[in-house]
């Protein structure tokens, strides 16, 4: 059978090609050279943001590779209360958290139905759900902006959370369905023969087995919602409710004449750090989640 289990760890040692003793020629060095180039390519811009955020305002235009002198001035300014940046981070957390939770609950039910039950129009429904993820954000925003203005939802969390579901639900359903399909049906069947109801089999057998998939989906959905920009930008104009990504795009700082690059970089680092930590800890899961849809 050609099917490869969808969420196989991408590079378990067993799968790595058998290691052959090689001559250490220019070829192996060129591999390392290529890898170094990739590292520089991926990390240099982020490193530059990090370094710049630790410079003083006076020497922000320095081009030295390390901040000299090292200063946390920008970080203190970001949180000094004049910009509501702490509040924006909290707002992002609330919006992304609720979006993720809602998408997961709905996604688990939908994915269970699609992967375990027999009904008509199944592939049509799955197709429709996947197709909705291709819907451009702006096509959601323009009509909903008007609706939310009419019902007084502008400057509320739900005005961001509900439109966020337009991309979060397809993502969750898609990931969870592929994952649940890869789990064997036997265990549930055995549990049902032993007298479990369908609901019990789902709750006590399938859900614990699907936990890794649910977790991966949660990480991906959270990252996508945390990074969301156009919906939050359109639905909210009150600085007390706006999310961190919108807040930093509007970061003007205290002085009007000089763009506060140091503070912007510090704010950017703060918004990115939670994601970088997640990437470092859960990198394997994230890659599995990202690639499960593409390689089947």
């Amino acid at each position, binding site marked *: 059978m050609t099917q490869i289990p969808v969420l196989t760890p991408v590079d378990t040692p067993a799968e790595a090609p058998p290691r052959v003793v090689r001559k250490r020629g220019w070829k192996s060095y060129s591999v390392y050279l290529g890898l170094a180039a*990739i590292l520089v390519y991926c990390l240099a811009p982020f490193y530059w943001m990090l370094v710049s955020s630790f410079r003083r305002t006076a020497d922000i235009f320095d081009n030295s590779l390390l901040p000299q002198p090292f200063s946390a001035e920008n970080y203190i300014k970001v949180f000094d209360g004049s910009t509501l940046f702490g509040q924006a981070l909290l707002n992002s957390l609330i919006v992304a958290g609720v979006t993720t939770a809602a998408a997961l609950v709905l996604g688990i039910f939908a994915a269970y139905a*699609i992967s375990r039950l027999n009904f008509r129009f199944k592939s049509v429904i799955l197709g429709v759900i996947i197709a909705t993820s291709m819907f451009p954000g702006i096509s959601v925003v323009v*009509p909903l902006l008007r609706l939310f203005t009419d019902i007084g939802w502008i400057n509320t969390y739900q005005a961001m959370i509900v439109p966020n579901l337009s991309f979060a639900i397809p993502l969750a359903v898609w990931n969870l369905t592929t994952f649940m399909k890869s789990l064997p049906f036997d265990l549930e069947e055995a549990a049902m023969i032993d007298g479990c109801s369908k609901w019990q089999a789902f709750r006590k057998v399938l859900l614990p087995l699907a936990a890794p998939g649910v977790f991966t989906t949660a990480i991906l959905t959270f990252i996508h919602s945390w*990074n969301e920009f156009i919906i939050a930008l359109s639905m909210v104009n009150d600085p007390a409710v706006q999310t961190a990504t919108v807040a930093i795009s509007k970061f003007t700082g205290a002085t009007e004449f000089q763009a506060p690059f140091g503070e912007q970089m510090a704010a950017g680092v703060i918004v990115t750090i939670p994601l970088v930590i997640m990437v470092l800890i859960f990198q394997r899961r994230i890659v599995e989640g990202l690639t499960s849809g593409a390689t089947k």
Partner: protein
Amino acid sequence: MSTRIAASPRSPGRTKSGNRSAGEGRMAALLLSPTLLVLALVIAYPLVSALYQSMFREQSGLDASGFVAEGEVFVGLGNYADLFVGESGARFLNAFGNTTFFTVTTVTLETVLGLCLAIAMNRAFRGRSFLRASILIPWAIPTAVSGLLWRWIFQSDGIANSLIGSETLWTAEGVAAKVAIIVAEVWKTAPFIGLLVLAGMQIIPEEIYEAAKIDGAGFWRQFRSITLPLVKPTLLVAVLFRLLDALRMFDLPFVLIGPGKESVETLSMLAFDESNQLRYGSASAFAVILFLYVALVAIVFVKLLGADVAGTKQVRALRRATSTRKAKAL
């Protein structure tokens, strides 16, 4: 595996199967209805509403009998007809051109670069997890933050200019702004394609390469005759996702260059600007056009190139295999 899933509910007790699937159908409807309800609100409603609103236009002026007319008037397809004439038409065509230009250039560069990244990563044995973590960083950085980051890099007295020794104004208007957008976008998304392609490469059995090596195939030959055909399905899906994503590009030009700049304004930005000006009619028309554009690209891509997004082909193939096996068993 899906063979078993597809087959098992049917296999025990054929006589009950009709009864059973009716019950399952009801349960499936129950489980799916919340999802479909929410999607109806956030996808179907906006689509219908945008189509409807795009047929109206804000009116503020004097009507024929001299009264001040306010509110909206029905203009039919007037908003769409206006897309091609006059000043607003020129702006639309420019935005349409920019969107297409950015999509074609960035996705092409991303695909080439992503393939190179994947090949390099596939050859690395040590430090692969470190490499993978670092390759995820550009992907994980919010686009708004990466826009800010690249604006800092592309400052007139920033690091980009001092590295290449020029005094280009990257973040103003013109070709330089376009280049800045392309560089920032490719930086963020090439690793994503690289990761997907790498996953596709890792399921290619090593024996094929061994055999090719014995037959005397060099690196390029192996790449063209083995790697490329075998990662093609993965690559197609990755490119399709990127195409659809690039067509709705908004955050990056908005933050990196700014709204209302002719040389980088995309369709999403134009629609956003129109709705900010409370011209919902034309904003909706732009949103509908963008939606149709995205749908067209998706359909053409799936039909012509056969990108298997939903995995339906495979399911069908499996089902066919199962039924033949069953037939043989009988």
